[in-house]
């Protein structure tokens, strides 16, 4: 009976759309998930680590992921870089590899500093995340709603891997949900 269900038995909305995105990455033949953790990427990271066909690599800073993905591509494999918006600025010079060597580059970025943000220190980089990528000729797409995430990632992955292009998909902070600070 529905009334007997505990609220915590319902799936976390973040897990639902993250699982949809993960299925898209598998379908796109992604073999490398390289990441700097973010709570919004927690489910994707967990799935990547558990998936035998994927090599999951934790980075100390986001720009390392650009090198790892270039190396993987030299070796014939596709990958994706997961980061939060604060990492976009760290990547700027290393993104010159994407232009100079022209290889398919896909990054999924969870936004901070834009919706129900407790920590104002996230705002400076968040407010220029799109521009930071665009400065380095990385195409930027943005998902606002959870139900559009998987379709957008799928479409952008096609663009990247069919066209030898570089693109970032930004996930709005609203999709991630309010972070609890009081606990």
């Amino acid at each position: 009976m529905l009334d007997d269900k505990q609220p915590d038995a319902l799936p976390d909305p973040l897990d639902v759309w993250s699982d949809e995105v993960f299925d898209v990455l598998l379908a796109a033949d992604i073999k490398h998930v390289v990441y700097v953790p973010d709570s919004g990427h927690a489910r994707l990271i967990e799935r990547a680590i558990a998936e035998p066909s994927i090599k999951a690599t934790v980075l100390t800073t986001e720009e390392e992921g650009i090198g790892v993905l270039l190396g993987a591509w030299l070796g014939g494999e596709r990958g994706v870089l997961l980061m939060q918006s604060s990492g976009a600025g760290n990547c700027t010079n290393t993104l010159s590899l994407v232009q100079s060597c022209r290889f398919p580059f896909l990054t999924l970025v969870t936004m901070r500093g834009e919706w129900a943000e407790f920590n104002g220190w996230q705002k400076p980089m968040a407010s220029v995340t799109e521009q930071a990528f665009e400065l380095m000729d990385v195409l930027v797409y943005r998902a606002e709603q959870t139900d559009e995430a998987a379709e957008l990632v799928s479409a952008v992955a096609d663009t990247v891997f069919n066209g030898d292009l570089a693109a970032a998909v930004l996930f709005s902070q609203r999709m991630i949900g309010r972070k609890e600070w009081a606990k």
Partner: protein
Amino acid sequence: MNLDSSGTLDRRKVVPELLQDRGDLLVVTGLGSPAYDAMAAGDHDANYYLWGGMGSAITIGLGLALAQPKRPVLVLTGDGEMLMGLGALATTGAKHPRNLSVAILDNERYGETGMQLTHTAHGVGLAEVAKACKFDHTEVITEMDEIAPFRQQLQSTDAGLRFAQIKIKAENVEKVLPSRDGVHIKNRFRAHLGFQPL
């Protein structure tokens, strides 16, 4: 300028000695002198030369080693380039591919920019950092006869992570330039492994 450094080895003798009989070895070089050294030793389709992205040689080597576990991979770079990506030693140690070696040509200088002192000139130990980052075999090479034993280790795809800090003289040598066309080098490298351009 005072070019005293603690190293005595000749980089143009060290690198040919490292790369002779290279077999299946895939090589990624850092930008600047290590790229010229590799080129001087003989251009090769399985060489990937960087001209930018300083600090990325080791991360590219890591991605390549993970994607090509049956091929041995060598990252050949300088002390300054390695220092810019020092955190990547931790990333590489944590992921721990077993087919990757890193050789640092350590002249204790930023050679491309006018031979300014690097951190190794101030006593920072790169091989010690690598050891702390879970590299299985680390050494500081100061004599030519130590190169051949390290070269033999390069061929292994299951010996774990290897790291050699090779103490070379601080000197300006002839620049032997590889292609600066990153797309060409990328396509050539991938073709060597059997992958076609898009």
